[in-house]
């Protein structure tokens, strides 16, 4: 929340070049008329389900046939997946399993629960596992808290107002996911949501509230009631820093190993997952963790740049957990469609691909084409909104081209202050306001150029409603999992899912451990078998996975988005 007292950081005034300023005039010209229409409650019509399906089939990057292939190995063998995902799964281990035989007999760490991933899902799982009397080790690739969670901007859903109920939240979530979601997971998601918000309130998360303490709630794309809880436009950062602070209040029970990603899971003689091999990115040493259960909370795959798209994702989002768990035999579900967020930044280029929160549209910003015309309802579900933008640029020549030759459409942010009062942008979208102000653009009076950007891994590891995978001892929560959101996630449901399933997995894992487990000998046998099947199916490659860090150095660069 920027306040009057806070100063502006040193500007690097770039601003819009004259040719774009000229194009903005077309947007300004239609603004009074659009404002009058909204005030008269006349909105751009939403697409019917049939119209929505039509635009998806023609324009969504993943509904088109290119850029994907049939997977040759593992439990999902035969399924058609994006090349980037298939590359990840059809890869060899980073380590030679035979070289670890002796090391596995002498683990470097022993604990009750090993959590892989230091973002929101891992943090919530750790706090609940601790509360249930377990000792926890969190191993994370970068710093504790560095994750997509910390980047979540718009909000977290929970049906807690009288005019709303988990029934409508369930209905919205299933519809947004095109009814491909796992109903039991959606029930858990929607029924636990208010409990989670109350838990966060107790931890001291600053939610946007009125003076009486009522949550100030907004809608999101495809969401029929106001259900979005926020903290300006940085709810993820607010939640993540509180949880990190709370974890550090329990150093005896929760140990955090930073810059130590997992490179393989370990499986014991009873076929249960019993630990992992970690790799210290700084000392380049491996260490062995033996655990009674492992929780996979490694997040998503945005930095694999699916279909050649730019991404809103964190530097560490390279889909590591998918590769590790898949080798151990966990199937992947709902992996056909990635989520392309409709509003990624196009200009200035320093912000290219970065997220413009959906909250911008819930507050009143509209999609406007080069001719100054609104062309889609601002709050369609994300996959449909993205497809409408792609159509507008590809077919209807409604796109606006930036000096970098990237193109997009206008997101008319000045509507917000006109609708809700001067100062709303600065207060409600403080982080975004600052991010553009640094480059000489005031989004409260100038619109933004946007184009879809890779945002979320809709699918992932198959889990049950307690976060258990079908491999004993291996649990999972957060973006690495699949089935909760079906083929398309709604705004505010990912920040919710990391909490609901982080909590459930933290509770469930203690039951699992208390039931006692029998295995004792750690092994990388499953990695050997996976290597064998790669060889047998003729996958000839030098690729290794997980890739850990995206390769942005010395690489011939793709032009985003890839031309089809």
């Amino acid at each position, binding site marked *: 929340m*920027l*306040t009057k*007292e*806070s*100063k502006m*950081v*040193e500007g690097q005034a770039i601003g819009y070049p004259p040719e774009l300023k000229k194009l903005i005039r077309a947007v300004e010209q239609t603004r009074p008329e659009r404002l009058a229409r909204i005030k008269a*409650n006349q909105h751009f019509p939403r697409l*019917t389900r049939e119209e929505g399906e039509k635009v998806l089939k023609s324009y969504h990057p993943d509904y088109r046939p290119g850029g994907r292939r049939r997977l040759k190995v593992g439990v999902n063998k035969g399924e058609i997946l994006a090349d980037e995902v298939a590359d990840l799964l059809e890869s060899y281990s980073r380590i030679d399993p035979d070289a670890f035989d002796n090391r596995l007999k002498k683990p470097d760490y022993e604990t009750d629960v090993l959590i892989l991933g230091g973002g929101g899902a891992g943090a919530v799982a750790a706090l609940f596992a601790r509360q249930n009397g377990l000792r926890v080790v969190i191993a994370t690739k970068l*710093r504790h808290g560095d994750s997509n969670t*910390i*980047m979540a901007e718009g909000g977290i859903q*929970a049906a*807690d107002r009288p005019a*709303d*109920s988990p029934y*409508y939240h369930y*209905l919205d979530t*299933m519809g947004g996911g095109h*009814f491909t979601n796992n*109903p039991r997971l959606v*029930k858990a998601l929607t*029924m636990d949501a*208010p*409990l989670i*918000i109350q838990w966060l*309130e107790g*931890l*001291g998360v*600053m939610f946007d*509230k009125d*003076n*009486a*303490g009522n*949550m100030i709630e907004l809608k999101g794309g495809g969401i029929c009631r*106001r259900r979005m809880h926020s903290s*300006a436009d*940085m709810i993820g*950062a607010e939640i993540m820093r*509180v949880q990190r*602070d709370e974890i*550090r*209040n329990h150093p005896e029970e929760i140990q955090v190993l930073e810059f130590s990603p997992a490179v393989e899971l370990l499986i014991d003689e009873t076929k249960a997952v019993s630990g992992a091999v970690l790799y210290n990115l700084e000392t380049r040493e491996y260490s062995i963790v033996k655990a009674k259960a492992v929780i996979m909370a490694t997040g998503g795959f945005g930095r694999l740049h699916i279909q050649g798209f*730019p991404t809103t994702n*964190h530097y560490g989002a390279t889909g590591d957990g998918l590769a590790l768990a898949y080798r151990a035999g966990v199937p992947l579900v709902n992996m056909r469609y990635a989520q392309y967020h409709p509003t990624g930044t196009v200009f200035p*280029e*320093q912000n*290219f691909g970065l997220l413009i929160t959906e909250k911008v549209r*819930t507050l009143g910003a509209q999609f406007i084409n080069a001719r100054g015309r609104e062309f889609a309802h601002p709050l369609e579900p994300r996959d449909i909104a993205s497809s409408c933008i792609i159509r507008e640029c590809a077919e209807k020549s409604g796109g606006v081209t930036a000096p970098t030759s990237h193109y997009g459409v206008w997101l008319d942010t000045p509507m917000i202050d006109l*609708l*809700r009062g001067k100062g709303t942008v600065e207060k409600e979208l403080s982080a975004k306001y600052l991010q553009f102000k640094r480059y000489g653009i005031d989004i409260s009076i100038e619109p933004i150029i946007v184009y879809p950007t890779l945002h979320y891994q809709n699918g992932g590891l198959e889990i049950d409603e307690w976060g258990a995978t079908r491999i004993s001892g291996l649990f999972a929560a957060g973006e690495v999992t699949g089935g909760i959101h079906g083929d398309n996630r709604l705004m505010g449901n990912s920040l919710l899912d990391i909490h609901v399933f982080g909590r459930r997995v933290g509770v469930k894992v203690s039951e699992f451990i208390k039931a006692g487990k029998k295995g004792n000998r750690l092994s990388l046998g499953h990695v050997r078998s996976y290597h064998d099947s790669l060889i047998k199916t003729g996958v000839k490659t030098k690729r290794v996975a997980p890739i850990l860090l995206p*390769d*942005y*150095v*010395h*690489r*011939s*660069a*793709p*032009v985003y988005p890839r031309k089809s």
Partner: protein
Amino acid sequence: MAGKKQATGNGAKMIPIYIMGKKYEVPETLTILTAMEYAGYRHIRGCGCRGGICGACATVYRLSGEYGLKFGLACQTVVAPDMYLAQIPFVPANKAIYDIEKLTPDINSIGRVYPDLYRCLACNTCSKACPMGISVMDYVQALLKGDIAGCARLSHSCTMCGICALRCPAELQQFHMAMLARRLYGRYLQPRARHLEKRVKQIKEGKFDPMMDEIMSLNNHELKQRYARREWEPESYENPDWRPEETKYLVLD
């Protein structure tokens, strides 16, 4: 923001920068983060969200011909000719350990946990260094006056990069104090949401179980029909007194 061509745009001018004293020629449009990658660095520390919110990429630099040290987030700061820069991989600071449930929301709580609070010289060096434009000194001064709410609000956009604490001549750990202030504010000073409390109680009493059972028993066709028919609530500025026509799936009392 991967790759050279993508990041450089069309024929950007090349300029010299000095990364930890070594000279590299980079396109002038790059941020410090992407310029380092252009120069061949692969980040392990000093890179996180790449979007200005995680606080991993604090950078200190001097510009040619200027005496002052400058601070910024590498992902948000564009390179300048003859910029001398180094990233700060880690900020040593001691986060205090406390039980949030046992603290009280007053100045004594924070003063006990972080006694360095009282050392503030009001020199404003912290505010000048903050890459988020936060008036750090003002929130420290608010705390000294017992104004926890003021500190919470002023520090809300803190990324906890720690530059304030590195620069402070009195050696305060401002960003950790503000963290505690925000939690005290969120837990104790903001009024609790009573509608939320009520909803949690209703869920625990099983009031929504019959409607969830009903919706889960529907076939896909029926579910799609209900989805298409659902009522849309307007935004609050459009109609603050809106009530839905269908109340069967609500719990009103």
